[in-house]
């Protein structure tokens, strides 16, 4: 049977780590190969790439809960939900890369200070700081110390980070915000569907 086989693969960490390493290495491989599109404006290229991947992982981790609510019987969804912490921390990992490449892009402190007053920049920085708190509090010892309810309450801030990331990504595009919609519209649909689903049984009971 193919299903348990796919579930076993998806439930393991190997594919996810391969994906993470490949995504981090990909722009550097393009640069090292002398690809003119990448190497024309390499700091900008690295910056954009890491930002896009960070957004994708943030959207992915936020999609896991609604998927679980909507498809509780799906083995695949359950397998994916095993990786919540790794997916979330990876979003922050690429955000760290993104900030590092930003540093490179603006030539360090003096350049960064010239950009910091722009909503486009501080929205990204604010999202980064929220993700930093969430990543640090995902260490085993801290999760235990906080207790399940406190941890869960704090980690709702991920939605706030997502709102900031949406603005940040939308502002990055020059002629519109279609790129940000490609990432966040599916998440919005999932969230709405989840809210509808979660409300239905309570209504039937009352």
């Amino acid at each position, binding site marked *: 049977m193919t299903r348990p086989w796919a579930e076993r693969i998806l439930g393991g960490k190997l594919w996810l780590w391969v994906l993470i390493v490949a995504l981090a290495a990909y722009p550097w491989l393009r*640069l090292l190969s002398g690809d*003119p*599109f990448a*190497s*024309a*404006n*390499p*700091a*900008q290229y*690295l910056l954009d790439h890491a930002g896009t991947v960070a957004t994708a992982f943030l959207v992915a981790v936020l999609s896991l809960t609604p998927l679980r609510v909507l498809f509780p019987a799906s083995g695949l969804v359950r397998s994916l939900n095993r990786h919540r912490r790794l997916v979330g921390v990876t979003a922050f990992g690429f955000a760290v890369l993104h900030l590092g490449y930003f540093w*490179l*892009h*603006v*030539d360090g402190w003096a*350049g960064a200070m*010239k*950009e910091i007053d*722009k*909503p*486009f*920049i501080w929205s990204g920085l604010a999202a980064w700081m929220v993700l930093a708190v969430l990543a640090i509090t995902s260490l085993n010892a801290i999760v235990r110390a906080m207790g399940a309810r406190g941890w869960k309450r704090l980690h709702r801030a991920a939605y706030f980070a997502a709102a900031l990331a949406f603005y940040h990504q939308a*502002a*990055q*595009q*020059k*002629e*519109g915000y*279609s790129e940000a919609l490609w990432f966040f519209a599916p998440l919005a649909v999932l969230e709405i569907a989840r809210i509808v689903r979660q409300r239905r049984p309570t209504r039937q009971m009352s």
Partner: protein
Amino acid sequence: MHIPRKRPGSLPESAATPESVFVNRRRFLRNLGLGLAGAAAGGALLRAATGGFPSARNPAFAGEGLQLTPFELVTSYNNFYEFGTDKESPRTRANQGWKTEPWTVEIAGLCANPMTLDVNDLIKRAGGIEERVYRFRCVEAWSMVVPWSGFELSKLIALAEPKAEAKFVKFVTFLDPKNVPGQRGGSIDWPYVEGLTIEEARNPLALLATGLYGKPMPNQNGAPIRLIVPWKYGFKSIKSIVRIEFVSKMPLNTWRDLQSEEYGFYANVNPKVDHPRWSQASERVIGAGVFGGRQPTLMFNGYEAEVAHLYKDLDLRRWY
């Protein structure tokens, strides 16, 4: 007295590669690049307006002290939203079915000699082409140095003989959604439009470019004829022009139409006036590498002496 200190590991001057050797190597690499690009584009590089070549460099615009951006990067890293909003798409998609030859240009509006003519005839009537090395500064805070071939816009204006009421020149790009994927959708109201004041258009720096690096203009760079106004942000330098019109009112240029709080009519390069989303004080040089850093952006992109007089009564913060 300044005594140059030798850093450990530094090489003596005699170890430097002689110019003739590295120039040849560059030429070899460039030719290699040209060959590959030509092969990839199916010879599309030669399809644009071929009139006037070879073009001799005008020594008054030799761009002394400027380092040319390699041909491969100039023809790969392109903003040409008609073929996609990313930098990569234009090089492939502008060479897939979009025809830039034959190409007709219409000169219209408030002028004594409106005309419609083939671009090669226009080149002939303008007295041929010459090469000029210009800085090119994009509003996205990156820059290139490009050897363009073309003729002064003022020559076309002289042919057209604009009337006294003509205060502005409006430029319009082609509209060909069948062969041009970006024009089939998106948030831009096609065709792309740009404009200059008539004084700006008469400035000797304003060039109608028909080629680069001594070759006809590659499609992705705006074949066969485009505007180059080096003291303004790149989006003012409209590509692939089909219509030049003399008008009395300030034309609504595409980017101002799209986001007027971010992109103005003048769009002069100005390190003191930021874009709402990023600083314009410095720029990344295309091809400088990952750790190449930034260089300060110059007022009017370094052409202050040539153009500052055009704006002496203009508040450049208000009229960005």
